């Protein structure tokens, strides 16, 4: 019985140009990104059983995949930051928090949690 728990986060910071804000169309939409993340997580982690060795690989793959997919969404003038955490569900409590220094008008994050019980 092993569980996989994934948590990730995308974080963007604006680039250092004098066009400092993204256009409205290309503004970061956390809902869409979340959906993307969810799909990626599902296709990667569905039917998987936690293993400490493999999860290293998984995190890398997943984060790359997510980054690629989110880039495809066309958020210009964003720097993307993807963080993937995989842990085993063994009953311990987990608390994750992050701290971002950003322009909250434009920058945002999206996160999704995937848990399976096998």
């Amino acid at each position, binding site marked *: 019985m092993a569980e996989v728990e994934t948590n990730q986060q995308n974080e963007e910071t604006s680039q250092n140009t004098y066009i*400092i804000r993204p256009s409205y169309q290309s503004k970061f939409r956390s809902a869409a990104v979340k959906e993307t993340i969810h799909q990626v997580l599902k296709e990667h982690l569905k039917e998987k059983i936690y293993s400490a060795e493999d999860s290293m690989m998984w995190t890398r793959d997943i984060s790359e995949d997510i980054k690629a997919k989110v880039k495809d969404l066309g958020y210009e003038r964003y720097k993307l930051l993807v963080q993937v955490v995989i842990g085993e569900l063994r009953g311990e409590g987990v608390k994750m928090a992050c701290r971002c220094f950003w322009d909250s008008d434009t920058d945002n994050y999206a996160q999704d949690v995937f848990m399976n019980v096998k």
Partner: protein
Amino acid sequence: MPSGKRLDDTWKTDELKNSLKKDEKKKSSKDKERKEDRDREKKRDKKKDEDRDRKRDKERRKDEDSDRKHRKDDGERERRRPKEDEDEGERQRRKEERRKRKEGGESEKKERKYRDEDDDEKRRRRKDETSQERDERRRRRKEETSQEREERRRRRKDETSQERDERRRRKKDETSQERDERRRRRKEETSEEREKRKREERRKRKEDKENEDNDDRRRHRRDETSEERRKRHEEKKEKRRKEKEERERQEEEERRRQEELAKQNNEDENNYDNYEDDFEDYDDDFEDDAGGGDDSANDEQNNEMSDLMKAMNDENERLLKDSRKRDNDYDDDEESGNESDTRPEKSGSTFINFVSAKQRVISNAAMSKTKKRGQELLKLIELDCSNLDMFDMPPVNEYDLYIRSFGRADTQQVYIQTNEDNADKDNQTEEIDYRDKWSQHPPEGFKACGTGDGNDENEISTKPDDIKRLNKFLNTACQAVLTLLEENLMETKSEEDPGRKKSRVVVSEEYIQLAQLEFLKDFPVRYATFSPTQSNLLIIVHEFSSKKEEANHNYQKGLICMWNVGEPSFPQKILTCENEPMCACFSPNKATLIFAGLSDGSLVVWDLREASNFHKTFKDESVEYVLRGPTYNTAAILENDNHYAPIKSVTAIISPDNTADSGFTKNGSSIEGLTFQIATLDESGVVSLWVVAEISNPDPAGSQTDFGLAPGGRVKLIKSSSIYLESPLRDTRLRSTLQCTDFAVLPSDPSHFYVTTNTGCIIHGIRYGGKAPPKAYRNMPDLPVTVTCIDFSPFTEPVFLTGSENGEIHLYHTRSENPLLSWSDTTEGRAIKFIKFCRSRPSVFFVVDEMNTLYIWDLSMLDSGPAKTEKISEINLKAFCLSNDHSATGQGLPGRKPQMILAFEDSVVEVHTVSQKFSALFPEEVDQFAELINNSL
């Protein structure tokens, strides 16, 4: 940070470029660069120079050669003065000059001189400001607000605004392209060139160092003598040491200032300009130095210098060592400067790599550019810090974990039962006593509310179930015991007992006076009779007394008391009725019923078997009486068939088939009601016959159809027939006024009854109709005299005696219409009230007249008159009765002596025992009497 190395680089290139004069443009840029570098150097060295100048000034003042110094100062000042005027436009001018120099080339020296002068001027300006001012400024900085600082900065800016603006402009003009170009060029320079340059630089540096220190000195030195020089040299040494220390201190201060400025910068972005200013100042210091170097390089040609070299080097080395020891944390610039100073001495041909320094400069430039841009952007962008909770999962509690790991799939644990709630406690108290108590009302059985408990269970089973039966038993048993006790008492204390008195009457041996009850005092006796079978029982019928108010008494109009002769202290039963009773009788076989005829013509019956609690109780002075109401009352029940006149007589008629004894024994109590009838006679001559009926299932709620029956009553009277008597007289005058006085039945045949009337005749009737041979018995004179009483002989002979108003006594035989014997005037004409045969002897009878005189007749001894005459009492005798003697007639209780009741008007009742003389039966007397009768017929 500009370094000496770079300085030399630039100088080298400048020279190369100048000599080659390849590119005008490049050259101009180089000039600019050089100028910049020089400025920077100037700034850096400025402070040092200032300090040096300061010290020098001081020293000079002290110096013996103050004249010379003064002169020089004056000269400097003079030189400076015109420059000060042009201060603002100075830079511009210098630029033009430089341009000219480039064209001209030889004007460089002059230009440098100018610059030196400029520098001096600057230095002096600074000096004016410095030390005190700087301290003050520092102090102020701390105290001042940012505004003030701003102000100061502005002031400072104004001072050199022109210069600075120009410089800045120049800097800005230098684009990155230019810089890159320069860099490229540098790279293109061959190592040879580099080597060469370095060597040159090294040399220059040495000279610089010297010049650095001895800017003014050199000038003086030219004029001075060698002695003076030596002297000065020594002084110089001293000075230099001091200067070094001073410099170090200043550098530290400078560093501190920079840090402060950096802080300020952080605090306030707008301070950035100021920061730059400081840098510029620093650069100026360096430029100064470099300028000095330049000067010295130029002056190096001077031969004098070579003399000094050795001493100088020694000195430098020593100083360097000191400084290294003391200040390991010197700036890179300083160190590199020192290195470049010392190395040529130690290892003349050592390769010094300036690439890292170069790169640092480049990166610094890039950094400053980025920084600048960032700062500009920061004004546009507002960044803020945000804390985000990414994920929060509480730890699984133990129970969930347990269920998850050990629970079954598809099931859910909903409830757990442990043995915790199965508490068990000990106690040491004793067993609880349980007891049942009856809590309902009305009580059931003998249990009353709040009585009875569990322990009684056995008792209950042993106790009789029927409380009524117990009561009944107790009643009868008590009565029997009481009677026995009283009889015993009487027998043992016959003589002394005050209740038994020696009779004043001759006929009686002794008598008992019944107790006079308080409430009966005012009720005179009307009638008294013995029970025919139970001769110890008697009935006293009381008159209604008008003196008593009805309201005061619970008993009603009529009162009848039943007594037991053996228990004279208290009446056995007290009976009440709605109207005044006239006469009464017992039931024939057993004294369980009492019948009474009332003055209103109604007949009532009391059932003595009824429980006393069915009846009202009346309490009179601590004595409780039970007042029994009638069980059955015919009043208003039978409308037409009822009597309408006062009842004169009530008689129980035993059916002819049964003798008294057989009827008593055979039929028993249950059917006794059917064995006799009641005959009543009212004053108007109506004889009614009643059947006594026993009700098997009495209704305690009362009958709904028979209103005469009391609730729970078991006896009722049913009228069977009525006989209307007619006057036997043919005289119609008298017929309508027929009044009956007394009634008697033939003992041997109860069907025949005889009624005394006011006509002088005794009417003979038969219960079932028909006619008997003598229709009436009458005295021969046929006078309408009221016959008052009649009594049959208790013996076998069917004879009866009648007493009349006029005192006549007749003896009749039932078969003969006329009397057998007649006696007149025996009572002296007084009316006869009572006439009774003696119950023991057939030939003896008693007569009482209205004057209460008792006449005792004994026909066996004397048939002409009474054997004895005796006055009984002055008080009017109201009742006279004799009890049956069982020994003589077989009726009544056996073994009892015949008794006689004398009831007086004052309610005194005396029960006399008939004396032996009149009760003892002669064996031949019955025959004698029969013979007498037969003879009379």
